[in-house]
């Protein structure tokens, strides 16, 4: 077990998400920054579906009960293992009784803690990703511990990785969305030539942007939405749906983020700037 001494601001268990239930209205969920997580699981030689901890803004304090190996990734935070500073994308051996403490957030917004063979929390509809009410929990707050398998011996093929991090990027590559054609020249001009900033309303469901473009009065029938769909609301606001985003919507879907753009945006917080670029 991994004992949770402090939970941090918002820490969840996530894997690659829940598939096959979107026609019943169940969001995919899963890690927000799949680029960084895949590096973490690769270093541990884990299956890509192995569950990791997604740590938002401030991190937890955790005590390992069994020996294993871990890798950190995503946002840069000052993290110590029994007072020794750790770095992202390096394999570390941890022993029973070791304490992992997260400190200051240096860069980015979501950090990941990967563990050899992943966290073994409950599978619900084929995924361990927290999403209330599909799962009972929406974060590790009030949970005493998290299960994982002991690993005494592991000789990683690669012990550290130089990752071309998503943290410094701010250009989001996008595809034209299904309702892209509704956009006027004026709207297109604003969309691709100005910078947008992330609004305070940003979470795993959606990122709203502060700057508006010309409003759009077109009404359409409710249709499917995806993680990464950029919706244009009747007031001209842009909403980027993220991993916990609803599966259908009635606002024009003007853009669709690339997978990499999703990872880049997942590392942004209120006030951070982004730009759209057509792929």
């Amino acid at each position, binding site marked *: 077990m991994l004992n949770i001494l402090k939970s941090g601001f918002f820490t969840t268990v996530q894997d690659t998400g829940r598939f096959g239930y*979107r*026609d019943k209205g169940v969001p995919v969920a899963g890690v927000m920054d799949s680029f960084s997580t895949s590096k973490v699981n690769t270093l541990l030689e884990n299956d890509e579906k192995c569950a990791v901890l997604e740590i938002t803004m401030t991190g937890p304090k955790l005590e390992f009960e069994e020996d294993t190996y871990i890798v950190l990734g995503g946002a840069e935070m000052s993290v110590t293992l029994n007072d020794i500073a750790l770095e992202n994308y390096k394999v570390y051996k941890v022993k029973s009784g070791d304490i992992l403490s997260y400190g200051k957030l240096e860069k980015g917004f979501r950090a990941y803690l990967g563990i050899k063979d992943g966290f073994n929390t409950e599978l*619900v509809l084929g995924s361990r990703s927290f999403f209330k009410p599909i799962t009972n929990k929406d974060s590790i707050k009030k949970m005493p511990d998290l299960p994982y398998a002991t690993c005494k011996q592991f000789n990683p093929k690669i012990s550290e990785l130089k990752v071309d991090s998503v943290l410094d990027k701010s250009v989001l590559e996008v*595809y034209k969305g299904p309702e892209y054609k509704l956009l006027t020249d004026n709207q297109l001009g604003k969309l691709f030539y100005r910078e947008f900033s992330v609004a305070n309303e940003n979470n795993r469901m959606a990122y709203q942007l502060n700057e508006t473009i010309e409003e759009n009065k077109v009404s*359409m*029938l*409710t*249709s499917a939405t995806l993680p990464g769909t950029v919706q244009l609301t009747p007031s001209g606001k842009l909403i980027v749906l993220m991993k916990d985003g609803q*599966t*259908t919507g009635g606002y024009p879907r003007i853009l669709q983020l690339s997978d990499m753009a999703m990872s880049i945006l997942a590392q942004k917080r209120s006030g951070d700037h982004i730009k759209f670029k057509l792929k």
Partner: protein
Amino acid sequence: MSNFKISVRQFGVHAILVEWPNKVDESILDEILQFIQYLKKNQLSEKEWEFVPAYNSLTLICKDTVLDFDYFKPKIKEWYSLIKKVSHATRYLWRLPVSYDLEFGLDLQEISSQLGLEVNRIIELHSKSIYTVYGIGFLPGFMYLGGVPEALEVPRKSTPRSKVPAGSVGLAGKQTGIYPQDSPGGWNIIGKCPIPMFNVKNENPCFVTVGDQIQFYPISMAEYQLHKIEAEVGIYNIEKIVLNA
């Protein structure tokens, strides 16, 4: 079959959007469902693909692969032209109990004066109608139902509630439906259904499928309490009628 002209569009690199004419129409929904049936049986494995129908659209999502749209666009049009006599998936009419007690029907009196209809007449109209499920979304298990009688069309509340209790039956514009979980919501609340619309413990977590039909029937407060307990312990049998046997 294939009575309608469809458009096939790229929706990012993992999804394809197929659209029918822009209207709410049973015959369009019927073709979408038959097309899904055909694709699942003959072309696209359910292990790799998700099929999300809603009103006049079908979104095909392939979870991991980057799709070659230039390959799929003509293929999808060709497949659509091929469906002739596909066996329908079984469709059901679900009869769901609703207590229209004023304790649950928080807005019944308010909309009674707005619509100029007695509360009993609202209940009668609402439970007499048969509604078609045009989509499931917004929340897990939330049904978009079409078929609200004109006399019951009432605007959504000017100030949404921050928390509508799970099971509440709402009415707004041309739509009615059940809030499957506690959620913020702006629809007028007229009653409560004791049967959960979504249960992760079931292999199929939501018994309703797009294309099914729903009818509500009024029950007393005592029956509500009974059915709620029956549903919780798993002995409530939801009344269903096969539509296309």
